[in-house]
């Protein structure tokens, strides 16, 4: 899978490359409008991460350019502007998702994962990981054909963990994933413990491979 990161802030772009690059993903980086256009027209990407404020041009016009080229690449807008208009216009112009800066890398990874999954929707709407299989359409989880009865939040968390496997996820990243942009209005994210505890218990009852580890003082990790 190929990801193109269009971001003028080199430090941030490098962090994203570092975080996202796995056996599964290959990341490329374009730092301005011109090089982004070159890359887009020459190659196909599974996902493009697009910053709206770029030297040499506007990110939104890049979106229209993409449409003109009849490209099918998935696009996630990552913008510091966090303006509703940009979000609406971006989605109208064919972007698939919008993530406001600052964000947790884990959230970005989960969004990319979900975008790529959605785009492969027709062929594959079931994620299988060893004994666990997740039906994205029905939103059900089964372990060796036993249905695991999860709440919506537990289900979201499971997807979040699987989308960030082998990475340490902090409590605040999890809280932000569950409560969206407003998690940072509160200073106590202890409820995350409760959800993770329940998720862990339910998975264990059905006999999963005990992938969900607690990392002392930090958060959790889905280790596989």
């Amino acid at each position, binding site marked *: 899978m190929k990801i193109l990161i269009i971001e003028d802030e080199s430090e*941030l772009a490098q962090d994203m490359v570092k*975080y996202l690059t796995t056996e599964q993903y290959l990341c490329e980086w374009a730092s301005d409008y011109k090089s982004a256009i070159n890359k887009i027209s020459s190659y196909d990407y599974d996902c493009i991460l697009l910053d709206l404020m770029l030297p040499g041009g506007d990110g939104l016009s890049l979106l229209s350019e993409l449409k003109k080229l009849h490209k099918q690449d998935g696009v996630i807008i990552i913008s510091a502007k966090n303006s*509703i208009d940009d979000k609406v216009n971006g989605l109208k112009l064919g972007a698939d998702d919008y993530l406001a*800066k600052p964000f947790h890398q884990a959230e970005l990874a989960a969004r990319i994962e979900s975008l790529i999954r959605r785009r492969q929707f027709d062929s594959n709407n079931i994620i299988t990981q060893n004994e666990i299989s997740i039906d994205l359409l029905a939103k059900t989880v089964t372990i060796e054909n036993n249905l695991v009865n999860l709440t919506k939040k537990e289900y979201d968390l499971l997807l979040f963990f699987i989308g960030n496997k082998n990475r340490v996820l902090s409590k605040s990243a999890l809280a932000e994933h569950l*409560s969206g942009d407003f*998690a940072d209005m509160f*200073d106590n994210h202890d409820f995350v413990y409760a959800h993770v505890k329940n998720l862990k218990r339910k998975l264990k009852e059905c006999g999963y491979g005990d992938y969900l580890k607690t990392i002392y*003082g*930090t*958060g959790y990790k889905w280790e596989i």
Partner: protein
Amino acid sequence: MTKLLNKPLKVFTIYALIILVISIPAYVLVVDFIWITELDENNWLTLQYTKNKLEAETFTEDDLEKINHIWGELQPGVSISKVEDNFSLQDSVYEAIRTNEYDPDDGEDRFRGLISYVVINGETYQLTIETNVEESDETFVAVAIVTLVFFAILIVGFIILNRKLSKNTWKPFYQTLSSLQSFELSKDRTLKLPETDIEEFQELNNSIEQLVKRNVDTYQLQKSFTENASHELQTPIALLKSKLDLLFQEKDVTPAISEILSSIEMPLSRLSRINKNLLLLAKVENQQYTEQEELSVKEYVENSLLLFEDYIEDKQITVCSDIENAIQVNTNPFLLETLTHNLLSNAIRHTQTEGAILIKLEANTLLFSNSGKAALDIKQLFQRFSMASKDKISSGLGLAIVNEIAKRENWKIDYYFENDYHTFSVEF
């Protein structure tokens, strides 16, 4: 408070009253003097005429008696009588006050007399000529009445003129005043005052326009400064966050380091929230959310409750919501969402564990109540960064944003403390 124009009117009125009151005795004295001078002259003329006539003819003593008698009968103003001892033959003037014989109800009358002497047939006769003069107290009353009538006319005139003046001359002033009263620094860009042909007002208007322009410029500058500053801060905050995420992934992070890293997350979150809210506030102030829709308030409150349910459960807060009233509000979805989110998160944050939150949707009002201990200062409540509690995470901007949104949308926002409950109300 008196109106500007009423102030000179009052002073003028008092001054006019004083002058007119002083003028009353002055008039009386002058009129009296003229009266008396005229009458004395008249008496003297009559006397000369009578003397001449008496001296030209020869009258006997009996004739004189008869004349005197006839005079007494027909014209009591003139009389003649014989003088026995004639040591004072000088002409003299006298004044007498007597009861009016014909009209006793009239009270007393004043008479002005001239006494002179005439020698007829070797005998000295005293000739008295008397004329009725208006009494000075009657003159006084008449003058006073006339003066007061004129005073009244003068005052009525003043008031009418004053009204006319204030309507015409002061019109630009009142126009300027009303423009200033309706001017809002955060809403209006410029202030255009009407042209006037009165120099002072034109100067005033020019100065005000300049002053307002400078203020608007400063305000705009400050506003764009806030927006630019928070824009600039977004990238470093994003970097810090992503660096922290990467640090967590390092293999050889000891638990001690990892705990420090975790404790960095909280202030970073707060920094991020303050920055986001500053940006949001600037955008609301800049009226960047203009699209309007008919929205159900109930739906938005339910969304907020759903979003924050974990925090509510975590603090074991009881939520009672009575939001069945289906009110529709024509507003921007993002603004309404921000309003309900901020009010609810504010209530959750400031409710102690096992406290209660009441949400009520009345006819046109949305009420958020939460249990608390003491009333808060309403003056400071909606100010930026005026935190009532030492809350570590609060951005200090939540209620300022609520206030700003309400101001933009012309909603009425209120706070009161009753029965150990803080209540915030929004009247749509």
